[in-house]
């Protein structure tokens, strides 16, 4: 009997949602643990980094790495796990495209810190706190992870074998990938796993747009009573579905919320936000520059909307940081 494959799970800069997805496998996790050994999973069990460091290179068969690279700890662990794993899977939107943390790249680090430590409404008053690299504890001076001025995707700093998008990746797709991985059925390296062909619109059941439909005003979902049957765009709600890869099973749409784009750009799209701007920009109804500005002003945060999950992976991001 061959040894059971070894699995590792790690979370870098992320919310933990990806970890929850794995726990959502529920009883199926038992099947997993029968077929494989989970050797590292800090979110669920007590493992130390030193345990990983003690492993041989490539000892881990598959590492599921979620979260973006925000600080030196994320980066160090990414390199370490890469070294110890045969197969590295970039798991979830943050690791894949930067995700929500990636939106921090719209700002410089100082203004982010100001917001967090000085001007957040929940603060009574600012104490001018800033993250430090070293801090003095009773036990002595401790090194703290360094905050980077840029959020990166996992693939930006290390080689990644597979990508698995989603915020979080939906549980059925996770199970499919687990099964495939355990059965050794993974496709060619570099592939995107746990996804379906084409875009969200392809699987969306809603009534599509009519000829000559134009958007006169952008609205946010809470501002209107949304029609369950009609395409969100025709209701003036920005939906990222056209530029977003299918695979999620459309839980948002079924919950009567527009697609937010977490599965990343569909095949053939180079830059998700720019493509969305190209598709949705073509729907704006105006021939008057002033009116156009008024319509654009109804969109509070275009970059945050079109690049909600993909900013750190965008061309604009490259232009800014390279």
């Amino acid at each position: 009997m061959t040894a059971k494959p070894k699995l590792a799970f790690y979370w870098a800069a992320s919310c933990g949602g990806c970890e929850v997805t794995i726990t959502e496998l529920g009883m199926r996790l038992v099947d997993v643990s029968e077929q494989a050994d989970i050797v590292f999973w800090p979110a669920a069990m007590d493992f130390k980094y030193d345990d990983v460091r003690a492993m041989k290179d490539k000892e881990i068969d598959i590492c599921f790495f979620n979260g973006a690279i925000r600080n030196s700890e994320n980066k160090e662990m990414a390199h370490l796990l890469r070294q110890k794993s045969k197969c590295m899977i970039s798991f979830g939107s943050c690791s894949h495209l930067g995700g929500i943390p990636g939106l921090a790249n719209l700002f410089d680090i100082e203004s982010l810190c100001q917001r967090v430590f000085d001007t957040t409404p929940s603060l009574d008053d600012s104490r001018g706190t800033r993250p430090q690299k070293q801090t003095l504890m009773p036990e002595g001076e401790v090194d703290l992870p360094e905050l980077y001025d840029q959020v990166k995707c996992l693939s930006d700093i290390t080689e990644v074998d597979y990508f698995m998008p989603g915020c979080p990746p939906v549980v059925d797709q996770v199970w499919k990938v687990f099964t495939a991985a355990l059965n050794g059925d993974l496709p060619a390296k570099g592939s995107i796993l746990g996804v379906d062909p084409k875009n969200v619109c392809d699987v969306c059941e809603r009534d599509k747009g009519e000829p000559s439909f134009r958007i006169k005003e952008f609205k946010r979902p809470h501002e209107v009573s949304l029609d369950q049957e009609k395409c969100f765009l025709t209701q003036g709600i920005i939906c990222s579905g056209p530029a977003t890869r299918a695979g999620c099973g459309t839980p948002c749409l079924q919950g009567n919320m527009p697609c937010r784009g977490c599965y990343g750009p569909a095949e053939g799209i180079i830059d998700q936000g720019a493509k969305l701007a190209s598709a949705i920009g073509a729907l704006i109804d105006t021939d008057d520059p002033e009116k156009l500005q008024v319509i654009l002003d109804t969109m509070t945060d275009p970059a945050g909307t079109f690049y909600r999950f993909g900013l750190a992976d965008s061309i604009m991001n490259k232009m800014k940081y390279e």
Partner: protein
Amino acid sequence: MSHSIMIRTFADEVKSIPGGEHLELCYSCGTCVSKCMIQQKVEPDYNPRRLLRLAIMDLKDEAFKSPTTWMCSECDLCYQACPQEIHISQVIAAVKKLAVEAGYTSPLTPVSVDEELCSGCGICVMVCPYEAPSLYEKEHNGDLDRLSEVDANKCMRCGTCVGACPLGAIAREGVSNTEITSQFGYVIPHNPLLVAFVCDWSLREDADVSLLESYPEDQVKIVHIPCTGRIDPQHALMALDSGINGVLVCGCKPGECHFKRGNHVAKCKISLLDAMLKQMQLNDKNIRLVQIGTQERGRIKYEVDDMLSTLKAPKEAIA
């Protein structure tokens, strides 16, 4: 009280279609012909005045076969200029409607839809100024697949749908995604300072076209597009990313778009892109949209020179 008018002639038929009523007001002054750029740029036999004449003289077959019937893109520049206030494009549309009913088909090659890529998202249906695309359902592996199809008699080849299609499922010969991206950027060893996406209709004067073409390749690369509605902000970003310093999008002045609204589409897209670049604290001046009026002879050279002289790499401008 309405009086039904007897339809005896082809001219009567045209006049009975809404928009065709004023056919016989035409006194053949030729304003429409010279206001329009189709004869000058594309088709020497294109002549709205003559089409109206063919209709008035009941020369039905010739009217149906005339390129004018099929090539009018309803930009309505001639309507604004017509001293008889004839809505010429609607008269032509009336002739075209009769031609289609009589089984004639457009000689133009429409945009094509790749069924393998199309997701049936309906964006093309919404953006087309001519209502050419529509969605239909087709059986595919036992499922009904929703797909877009294009009415060849309606498509005017502006490419607005090509620019908007998220999956690159729609192509128009000459300006498919690959045909555009192969002209500059990552694939080219030495990129120019400036890439200019130039709408073929925005430069009325031949003199201006030759002026633009006189720039050396290492300074300005011209990408010809049928309409600025075709542009894709992705391509602009790719250009900058690949080391080109500036992107100029050159289209027609508001109200003068050859394809009804492509210039507005371009304005919307570029405005959105500008807004995002600003949010990203990047210099939005390196992507510029200019909209040139029919009377603005020589402006393109001024705009290109101005841009060349002020070009800065986007990163230098980070605040």
